[in-house]
């Protein structure tokens, strides 16, 4: 065990720090609060800048403009990005989830066709996975693709699609064989969102905004050449994408959560409670300390998981611990914020008296989604129970 950075890791960090120091935009805070439709060109430009510095996809192989970064270097990358409060990248699903899946399963022609434009943010990618009747039971999805000559004809509906409104391409999971056990009849298609018959509708969520979309497919023609991986092997392809989703996300959250707790401590100092500052209230102190400790443990867990995965190279069920840990911790963090803010905690961004421009009321509502998106806590516990502990499958 050696938690000091190696020479390679230090060199990677220093090169990145130097690059960020001169390139990270200074005006992101002016854009952050705006609707994503307005800030999207800004995020595209930022991703292109990162690509120029070969920082857009550090985990990717060098032949695809990546840096073949180790898991530790990836963790360093996200920590440094969070440290300077860098904007997110426009094509975050393409870079983080779909690109790696295409690199792993795609044909040479597909890699050549799609990868460069993922990197340049020229083509934005979204994911068509969940359906109204297939959430946790993803393998039960019903969107069907019927072979007709050299095309598949796709009919069905997808939901909870991030970036659907701006997506040029979609990693779509469809049923190609309804007559075999449900996991065995799925295929992943790469679908041009401009194809006739594709309709995108905003899905208004409990926070009031629309981060996600519903996608409707009516007799959409998709060329056979757009199958990713093998026909009827879509479950493996889709799972690989989801493992990337669960594995890497925790690394970017440590500093974000640290920033939250620092802000909460400041709030506690300013808040009067029973004639003294809430920072002196023993119960508030207990809660802040618990959260602060768990934020560190989240990071220790991540580092340990990365060290284990470095040997195998592919993220596995360990990601489920991280997913449960960060999502439930974020909800506890927001609950403490609400306790500190009292009646002010409910004020929305529109109210001039809202603390921190309504950040806390928004986060309180938004974090309810954390234990649902990217695999519910219940599904994550099923994964741990079955795949890690070897208990019999419960469903």
């Amino acid at each position, binding site marked *: 065990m050696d938690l000091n950075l190696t020479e390679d890791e230090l060199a990677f960090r220093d090169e990145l720090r130097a690059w960020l120091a001169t390139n990270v935009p200074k005006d992101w805070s002016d854009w952050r609060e705006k609707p994503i439709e307005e800030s999207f060109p800004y995020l595209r430009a930022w991703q292109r800048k990162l690509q120029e510095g070969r920082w857009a996809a550090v985990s990717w192989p060098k032949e695809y403009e990546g840096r073949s970064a180790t898991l530790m270097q990836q963790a360093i990358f996200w920590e440094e990005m969070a440290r300077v409060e860098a904007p997110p990248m426009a094509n975050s699903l393409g870079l983080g989830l779909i690109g790696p899946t295409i690199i792993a399963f795609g044909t040479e022609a597909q890699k050549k066709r799609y990868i460069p434009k993922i990197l340049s943010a020229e083509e934005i990618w979204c994911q068509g996975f969940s359906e109204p009747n297939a959430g946790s039971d993803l393998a039960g999805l019903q969107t069907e693709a019927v072979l007709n000559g050299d095309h598949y004809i796709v009919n069905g509906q997808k939901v909870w699609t991030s970036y659907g409104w701006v997506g040029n391409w979609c990693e779509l999971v469809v049923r190609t064989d309804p007559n075999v056990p449900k996991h065995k009849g799925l295929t992943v298609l790469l679908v041009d969102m401009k194809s006739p018959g594709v309709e995108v509708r905003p899905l208004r969520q409990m926070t009031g905004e629309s981060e996600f979309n519903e996608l409707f497919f009516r007799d959409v023609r998709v060329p056979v050449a757009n199958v990713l991986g093998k026909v009827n092997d879509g479950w493996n392809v889709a799972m690989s994408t989801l493992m990337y989703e669960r594995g890497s996300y925790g690394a970017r959250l440590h500093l974000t959560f640290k920033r939250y707790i620092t802000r909460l401590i400041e709030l506690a100092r300013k808040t009067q409670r029973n004639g003294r500052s809430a920072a002196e209230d023993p119960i508030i102190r207990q809660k802040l*300390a618990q959260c602060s400790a768990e934020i560190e443990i989240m990071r220790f867990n991540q580092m340990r998981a990365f060290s284990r995965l470095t040997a195998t190279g592919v993220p596995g069920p360990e990601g489920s611990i991280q997913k449960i*840990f960060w999502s439930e911790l974020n909800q506890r963090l927001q609950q403490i914020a609400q306790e500190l803010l009292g009646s002010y905690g409910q004020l929305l961004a529109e109210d001039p008296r809202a603390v921190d421009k309504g950040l806390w009321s928004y986060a309180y509502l938004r974090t309810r989604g954390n234990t649902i998106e990217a695999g519910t806590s219940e599904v994550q516990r099923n994964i*741990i129970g079955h795949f890690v502990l070897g208990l019999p499958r419960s469903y």
Partner: protein
Amino acid sequence: MQFGLSESQEFLKDSARKFFAGECSSAEMRRLMETDTAYDPTLWSKLVDQGYTGIIYPEAYGGVGLGKVELMLLMEEAGRALLPGPFFSTAVLAGSILDTVATPAHKSKYLAPICRGEARATVAIPEASGSWNPQDVQLTACGGKLTGEKYFVPDAAVADFIIVVARNGVFIVDPKASGVKISPMTGMDLTRKLYAIEFSNAPAEEIGAISNLPRALDIATAALAAELVGGMQRTLDLTVEYAKTRKQFGKPIGMFQAVQHQCADMYLETESARSAVYYAGWALEENSPDAATAVSIAKMYASDAARTVGNRGIQIHGGMGFTWENDIHLYYRRAKASETAFGDATFHRERIASLVIDSDCVPAKSE
């Protein structure tokens, strides 16, 4: 950065696991817990042969000179076996205090016999208040003599010397000297016996100042958290095994999500406690500026998690979990004793608060 065990660390952990499985089986542990002291000279000499009594101490005093991470690994395996007797009291607690506060002469006199396996020892900190915080100690030495009481002293009946924390220094007392009366306290944990000690003008030899105690206590605290992790892992293993084999309604109970999800939580808590303990071991070894915080994080989390893992483990075992013959309650008993020793989760949360909230900057060791 490599937050996994090195080959030699894996080897140490594996060999400790095999050693305890062979020398301290459940039957042997149960035999010892039924004795007055839970101490067995034969088992002790085997621990000594492995070098475990001197694992982290300098070779100059007969130790092995390994680091704090290695100590965490050894204690984790000792905890998995619920090792009875004075190993923690002697080789971790007394040893760390001698190593950090004593002069070289005192180390030769007291630490070296511990490393060589010739002496058992313990440390007396809490008094009637039950507090493990050295700042709450009232006992004061006067003219080289001690008068007063110490409670919750582990393994005192088999100690060849007792390290006593007083307001004005750290002292060594010979338990056989006049004016020292040791009487058992009957605690939940049957594998680590507790004692009350009454001193009436007992002769005491000063070995150092209390100002150096915090680091030694941090080492012992982290090691106790590591021991809790081993107990949690054993509780989890027993529970998962039971959930796979016990059938109700024609199915293994582990197939039911109400059971399976509790097992998943036990796993999450065990792994998280392990991460916190390994980090604390590393921070202590490196003398990192956040070492004290890291120790409190580990003890805080492990104290709570060991209890909740035990709660779930007993619940999933159903009626079997409530029987004397099932080992799971023995781990639960140790977990309760260790939860309060060296400060419970509430104590350590307040310590984290004072380190994190009351300082202007949040200490971030992320380089």
